[in-house]
């Protein structure tokens, strides 16, 4: 192959140019994302100073040991479990909903349906969660209906201030987070692909299992992760709809900050962020979310 000096030079020249172009976004990433996280992680190894009510650079793992005391580890597990349950329920509801929006309706109706799903976001989350108290409460709509229909004599107590109420409130609040990425994934499926599958002998469920599901899987995973991450961070639904003193990681962080135990708060935050980052990286690797973009090349 003949030597092409011009080409070589341009390849070499592209390196520093590309690097320079990437610098601003790199700076933003480091400044906004990495540096605060690094500080939080560092301070989580410092100690609380009761004389100054502040932290001092006395290195210690005490805050991490404290994560396993007083049921704090339980809060982690409960929060993760609740978030996983919320994400699972949201995803299970979002797949058929997104399927209707993405596959069966035209683009205009799809936009309308999608907008309908996002309308709840125009009210504050606090108001939405609060509204559930009026629906699920002892004198709420559901109990009133049940009692006037003679199905129950006394109000059903577990409807409100229970894990059920929390789950319902969270699914209602975060369902759109699952629907949007799944709708996008559905929208990427070419009709001809589904037709081809039918044409080659696949019935409805075979088409769904072998074609639709694998193709929307990255969207489903993205939707699950969106809901999971938001649900891990929420406190509103738990405080408004949960039972006495119901907890979550963010409620615990607030409790801890209220008594200025900064190292412990930072340790909790560090663990949460680390675990979520690892989770997202694993999900991205395992399910190759980038495949979404490859398939656009067809």
């Amino acid at each position, binding site marked *: 192959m003949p030597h092409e000096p011009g080409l070589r030079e341009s390849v070499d020249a592209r390196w520093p140019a590309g690097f320079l172009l990437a610098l601003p976004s790199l700076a933003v990433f480091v400044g906004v994302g990495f540096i605060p996280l690094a500080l939080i992680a560092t301070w989580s190894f410092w100690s*609380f100073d009761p*004389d*100054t*009510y*502040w932290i001092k650079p006395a290195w210690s793992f005490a805050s991490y040991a404290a994560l396993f*005391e*007083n*049921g*704090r580890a*339980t*809060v982690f597990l409960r929060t993760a479990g609740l978030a996983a349950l919320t994400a699972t329920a949201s995803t299970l509801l979002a797949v058929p909903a997104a399927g209707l929006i993405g596959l069966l309706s035209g683009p205009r109706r799809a936009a309308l349906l999608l907008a309908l799903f996002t309308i709840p976001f125009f009210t504050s989350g606090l108001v939405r969660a*609060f509204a559930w*108290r*009026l629906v699920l*409460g*002892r*004198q*709420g709509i559901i109990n009133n209906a049940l009692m006037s229909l003679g199905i129950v004599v006394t109000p059903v*107590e577990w409807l*409100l*201030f229970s894990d059920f109420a929390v789950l319902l409130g969270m699914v209602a609040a975060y369902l759109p987070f699952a629907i949007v990425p799944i709708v996008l994934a559905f929208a990427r499926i070419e009709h001809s692909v589904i037709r081809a599958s039918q044409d080659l002998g696949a019935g409805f469920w075979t088409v769904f299992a072998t074609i639709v599901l694998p193709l929307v899987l990255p969207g489903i995973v993205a939707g699950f992760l969106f809901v999971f991450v938001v649900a891990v961070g929420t406190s509103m639904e738990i*405080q*408004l709809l*949960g*039972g*006495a*003193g*119901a*907890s979550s990681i963010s*409620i*615990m962080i*607030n*409790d*801890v*900050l*209220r*008594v*200025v*135990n900064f190292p412990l708060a930072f340790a909790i935050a560090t663990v949460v962020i680390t675990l979520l980052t690892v989770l997202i990286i694993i999900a991205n690797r395992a399910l190759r979310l980038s495949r979404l973009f490859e398939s656009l090349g067809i």
Partner: protein
Amino acid sequence: MAHSIGNGFPPGVFSQLTRRQLVQNGVFGAGALAVGSLGLPRAARALDEINFWATGTLDIGDDGWRTFAYDSGVKVEFTDNGNDPGPVVAKLAAGNANDIYDVAGLQGGSEKELARRGLIAPWDISQIQNYASVWQWAKDIPYLTHDGKAYGIPTVINADSIIAIRDKAGSVDSYGAIFDPKLKGKTAMEDAWINSVIFTAIYLKNSENAKIAEPGNLTADELGLVMEFLIKHKRDRQFRTFWNGWEQGLQLLANQEVWVMTGWEPIVYAARMRGVDCYYAVPREGYEGWANNTILLKSAVVRGRTKAAHQLVNALFSGFYGCKLGLLRGYVVPTDNNVAYATAHANAFDPAGVRKLADHVKQKFAGKIYWQNTRPDNFQLYETWWQRLRNA
């Protein structure tokens, strides 16, 4: 932080005012600026301006502050600090609150901590002439001073107990109702150890003869006793829920989700307006007294705002503020100047009503009072126990 205020400009009122207004404007929107610069008629003397960062219930509204400025010569820019002492302390310590505000108001107890960290400065009582009129028992609140200096000025005081729905809970005169098995699943407490732990301690001390010296400042053992008691009742599903904030507390009563709960007196008035026949119980164990104290931020001293800050606090006790706050929120400023002011301004305020409110609070404080304390000595231990309660 205070040193960076001039940003290289020579220190002076003008540059500081401008800067503060810019910060306010940027942080809190144009509204604050409009109130400060447009709404105020020119008074004969130059007005001192104070950025007052306090519990939202201390706000007397735009026209209230306008009259306040006429009377006192202090123009107040009020900002709600959210009331929760934890975040307020954090913003003073690690945030920019000390750059923006001159005077803050928050539930008492954190003065010692703030003073020790050099975030607040002591008041010079001699510069607050009206302080002489403050009711003695309010001046005697234990944690107003640190190292013999006055750091907290009790601006609003009240005594809290329990709210009960008459036809459901009957006549309640003890915190024991909260833990009464007959009311299982029909009671609630606040989702905050600051109030719920002291209520329980008051109950155990007085009705179950528990060895508790000071319910507002429990030792580790006392705290364990109180918390085990709470944990047991939580496990027994005694509590319907724990509530956070005004609306949630009110909704619990208004929709009769609970029949008895510890709570704030104004919730009773609001629930009555919603047609719920409830009352504020007079507990035989005594009330939880609390004070919302005014503190002087260190940076205000550095900026030369000390005199104006004292002028502000003095004006809070001069009568108008007490009358206005009582009218707006039913809260009491602990001075007889309120009654005097209302009598002198009978066209604006009802002297009998002002007196009645003052007497009502005085009446509560005539009995047993245990002072709320947002920073008990073992405050971090309170949190770990609260965490155990959450997980029980």
